[in-house]
């Protein structure tokens, strides 16, 4: 197999932590295949972000500074130009909303097969085999891609992050290629939800709430103290987001984020199939739910069938006094 290219995601002049698993996978596959990997750091603030990418063992870190926020059509020609110029045979990124947006279109432009949101990448006889969840995680499919270039996005929760290698990659400025569609789609802005908590997909502990919390005030007052105490992130069911108790970036599930923390506490979440798809890979699942028959119970390790409005503050107090 030929060389590998990792697309790093840049946000606020930094590399998103999610990208580290794509680097980790590339490191492993490159070793097994006896090839090297490069990284493309592209976007506004890429020059600054690239400094974070130099120590992971990549042969080269290509840097393309593109002013303005992310627009697939403006990034794409540069990405495919690099792949063609360097003869990369495996192009990968983490399956964030960015990764899925950019790499799906990138695969089509390269007429390359795409394996999306994969949970496993294996190399055998010089070619790649992928495994990926389908039907909201109720079936796993093994696939190969019958094109010379393989494109994949990686489910963050299923791969290990790269670790610094004590090496220094060569940094190469890569000019932005002309983007014919750039005058037909324009970036207007990114409204980010400011939070001091860890990102949902990075957190070791996730405290998630459902519609049973009944209001955004309860969401805050009941869940936040527990999340803060455990250094956890706060997640939500689709129902809670739709009801306006939580913001959309907090949604866990088939729609929304897939998380696999060490501890997932589902508070007043019944556990629709779509929600389970986003959290059943968690190491330990606690359900706090008055309904002992709720579907969440089928994936839970521990169930506390009590009223959440008394149980969660009591849990917070118990942990506080114990620590």
């Amino acid at each position, binding site marked *: 197999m030929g060389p590998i290219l990792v697309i790093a995601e840049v946000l606020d002049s930094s590399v998103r932590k999610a990208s580290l698993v794509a680097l980790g996978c590339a490191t492993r596959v490159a070793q097994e295949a006896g090839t090297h990997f490069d990284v493309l750091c592209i976007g506004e603030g890429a020059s600054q972000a690239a400094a974070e990418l130099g120590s992971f063992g990549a042969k080269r870190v290509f840097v393309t500074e593109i002013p303005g926020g992310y627009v697939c059509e403006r990034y794409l020609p540069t990405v495919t130009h690099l792949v063609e110029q360097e003869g990369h045979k495996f192009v990968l990124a983490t399956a964030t909303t960015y990764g899925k947006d950019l790499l799906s279109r990138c695969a089509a432009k390269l007429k390359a097969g795409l394996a999306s949101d994969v949970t496993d990448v294996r190399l055998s006889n010089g070619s790649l085999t992928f495994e990926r969840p389908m039907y909201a995680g109720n079936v796993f499919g093994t696939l190969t891609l019958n094109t010379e270039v393989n494109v994949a996005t990686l489910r963050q929760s299923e791969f290990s992050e790269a670790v610094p290698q004590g090496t220094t990659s060569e940094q190469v400025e890569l000019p932005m290629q002309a983007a014919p569609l750039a005058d037909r789609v324009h970036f207007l802005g990114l409204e980010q939800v400011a939070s001091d908590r860890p990102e949902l997909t990075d957190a070791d502990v996730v405290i998630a709430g459902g519609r049973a919390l009944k209001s955004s005030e309860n969401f805050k007052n009941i869940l936040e103290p527990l999340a803060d105490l455990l250094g956890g992130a706060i997640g939500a069911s689709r129902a809670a987001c739709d009801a306006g108790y939580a*913001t959309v970036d907090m949604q866990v599930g088939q729609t929304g984020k897939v998380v696999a923390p060490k501890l997932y506490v589902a508070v007043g979440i019944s556990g629709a199939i779509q929600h389970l798809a986003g959290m059943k890979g968690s190491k330990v699942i606690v359900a706090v739910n008055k309904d002992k028959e709720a579907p969440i119970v089928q994936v839970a390790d521990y169930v506390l069938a009590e009223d959440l409005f008394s149980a969660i503050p009591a849990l917070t107090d118990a942990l506080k006094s114990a620590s």
Partner: protein
Amino acid sequence: MKILVPIKRVADPDNANKVGVSADGRTIETSGMEWKINPFDEYALEAALRLTEHGVTKERIGEVVLCSIAPADVATTLRQGLAMGAERAIVVEQDDSALDAFAVAEILAALVKREKPDLVMLGKQAVDGDASATGQMLAEQLEWPMATIAMRIEVEAEGKRLKVGREVDTGVLSLRVELPAVLTASDRLVHPHSVRNGVTPADFSYPESDGGRYASLKGIMAAKKKPIDTLTLADLEVSPTSLCDYTQFRLPSARGGQAVFVNSVAELVQHLKQDAKVL
């Protein structure tokens, strides 16, 4: 505005845990499960209907054309969309079970060239394959701009362009897209104020819903008379190529053991510390 809405039929997503795998692991089995419109395609359809109607009078101000790539009996599923208010439908008669997103995009691109819509709106993902790729691949094949995971849409410049809010990991990313374009729908596109078409009064509010609109009796009756055309790949002069080969399927490994029911917060804390060792 003319909008093409590709519809995929999928095995009932609310029973996705009943999907099986054949004994030799070569095929996914959904026999006995009901076909449903892929929920995200239904959100795309609902948003397309809102873009092409006066919200208050329900007067149609544009055209919505449905299409599906599937065996002929998909017509039953498409009738539901016609009953919701779409004008007509096209079936591209083809076994779709082995088509990947690239192949589907090739067929849709051929259909777009024939129908010449201003906008293609489809779900951000189909909930069977869960790939989230068809919209992006279609946009690339058409060389059109795109906005994926759309959660709000505002018509600008008398329908020449759209302002779209995309639901991304870190918040909402806004784009201005010139038509023709491809949009993929998130579930939030059916919220009461998520679609503004410039004709419907700005303060108009659609009812809270977690899906598309229910068909009225009048809509169901009208749908029986609406045209559903059938095309073949030969009619479209396209021979799609799938680039993925699925070799094996399996069911997920079950999570270990039965849940432990604890009787108190104290007992829970004890388990989490001593048995699970996560605190």
